[in-house]
């Protein structure tokens, strides 16, 4: 409580780095230690044991785990995320290209969901108790938990198969820009929007209801301010600040959704890359993928924290209160 915003942010960053370290340990353990004999895994059960041992030595899999981990981390810090077992090539270019694609899809989804869900939440709060409120609340409650593949099926059938409005494959054609590809991105973005909508809308509604019933809103009404000014200056200002954190907290669900949606719509993003690596038991690719999405999530959370701290007026002096 005594910290200024800078010290607070420094603490958040150090927590973020610690989280990143623990994540790397988990990924390393999951990807390199647990699968056991890497050489055997690659060469298959029928391979000559000498060949397996030679490959192990070549990959460094016969050394102590701590040494392997340090090598691995040092490699990552130098930009070397490892060699893909499947493609016999460095994984970094695959990861970077896929991340760029996924970010575009995520951006399309966020551009759709943020205004939609906040708008719906605020509308429900302003009309609370009415039919609109109940519909929005119930939709928010139900849509959040429906798996993306279910909604994907629905939108594909509806818009792709029956109405034929939009293409059902999102595969990125070489040479197209974001705008050229946009019609291919809308359909896959919808399932992501559906999953994210509910939680954000519910939090926006709750925040707005609280602000509407607050005494400071009554004070503002009694000043004789017009309804629009009361809502914009006094209600929304206080109601929507926590929504930043709420949206950031959805990043991990968004990434989970990308795995499903990208593979369904055949989009070359990080999700489909991870899924393909998992099916091919391409551990270096899988590790790099998981680590990079984990790092992204941590970064987003930190950014949201920083933004919230920046927008919160006047830190409390002294012992607060």
């Amino acid at each position, binding site marked *: 409580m005594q910290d200024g915003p800078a010290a607070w942010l420094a603490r958040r960053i150090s*927590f973020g780095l610690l989280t990143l370290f623990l994540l790397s340990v988990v990924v390393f353990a999951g990807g390199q230690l647990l699968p056991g004999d890497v050489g055997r895994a690659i060469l298959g059960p029928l391979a000559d044991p000498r060949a397996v041992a030679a490959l192990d030595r070549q990959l460094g899999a016969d050394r102590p785990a701590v040494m392997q981990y340090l090598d691995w981390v040092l490699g990552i810090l130098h930009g070397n995320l490892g060699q893909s077992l499947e493609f016999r090539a460095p994984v970094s270019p695959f990861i970077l290209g896929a991340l760029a694609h996924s970010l575009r899809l995520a951006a399309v989804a966020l551009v759709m969901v943020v205004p939609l869900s906040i708008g719906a939440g605020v509308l429900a709060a302003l009309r609370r108790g009415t039919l609109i409120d109940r519909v929005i609340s119930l939709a928010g409650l*139900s849509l959040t*938990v*429906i798996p993306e593949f*279910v909604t994907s099926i629905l939108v594909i059938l509806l818009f792709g198969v029956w109405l034929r409005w939009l293409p059902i494959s999102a595969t990125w054609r070489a040479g197209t820009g974001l705008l050229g590809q946009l019609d291919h991105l809308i359909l896959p973005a919808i399932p992501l929007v559906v999953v994210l909508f509910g939680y954000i809308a519910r939090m926006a509604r709750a925040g707005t209801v609280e602000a509407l019933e607050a005494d400071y809103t009554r004070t503002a009404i009694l000043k004789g301010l017009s309804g629009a000014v009361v809502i914009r200056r006094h209600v929304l200002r206080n109601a929507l600040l926590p929504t930043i954190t709420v949206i950031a907290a959805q990043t991990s669900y968004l990434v989970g959704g990308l*795995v499903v949606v990208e593979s369904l719509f055949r989009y070359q993003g990080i999700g489909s890359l*991870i899924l393909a690596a998992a099916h091919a038991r391409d551990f270096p690719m899988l590790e790099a993928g*998981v680590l990079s999405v*984990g790092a992204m999530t941590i970064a987003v959370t930190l950014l949201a924290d920083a933004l919230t701290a920046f927008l919160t007026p006047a830190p409390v002096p002294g012992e607060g209160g």
Partner: protein
Amino acid sequence: MSREVIAAGVVPEEAPQPSRWRLLRRSGGFRAGAAIVGFWALAALFGPMLVPWNPFATDPLHALAPPSAAHWFGTDQLGRDIFSRVIAGSRDILTIAPLATLLGTIVGSALGLAGGTLGGAFDFVLGRIIEVLVSLPLIVVALLALVAFGASPATTIVLIGLVFAPLVARTVRAAVLGEIALDYVAAAELCGESRLAIMFVEILPNVLGPVLVEATVRLGYAVFAVASLSFLGFGPGPPSPDWGLAIAENYGVIAGGYWWTVSFDAAATASLVVGVNLLAEALHQALAS
């Protein structure tokens, strides 16, 4: 006449508050959720005995038949009756998801109770682990672990259970800290209650409500995760009638207009998660009142 005497005699009856159970039963969301979840639970238990067709019997001559009087939901690419398969397909998910939730709830509650009451280094480490897991997409972690350990129902249960445990622990820990801040804990300490008695006799009964709500919420996510994993090919293998698997198997033909091959499985999945979530919300409301 001393009024204190009267005071003892005519203390008016306080209007008894309606019990939480009664509030719960009156809630429409609870009834709807209970009906949906109850239906699928019965289907999982007895469905395979009651369905009109053998869910595994193939009939290549009637493959991809649209819904009809004989096959209410139509048939799939191998000519199997989709209605029978949807009913029978509830069994896997309704075994794996609740068991995973149970595991996560038990481990998580123990961790949360210990973290909240013990504090210190244990609590700090727990807090960091929770932070890591919250920042990780469940599906992605699950993929990594399933590849590392090999996919099987047992792996899925343990995996989801362990991923949920810290999330449950977070809720329980917060509830425990809320209780510790209350004066009755200090009062119990002053009366000489042991630490264990304070943990289990004083605090635990008051955090059971939040635990129940959290477990129901988790069950919803468990169904979500299990269904997604089996859709991605890390669940039961063919010829299981599992919903996620069925959608993955038939997804390729929907562009040809065979909508019934996936729609009913999708609706079943959606209804189950929505049902569980309605229950969770109703429980939450009843306990918050």
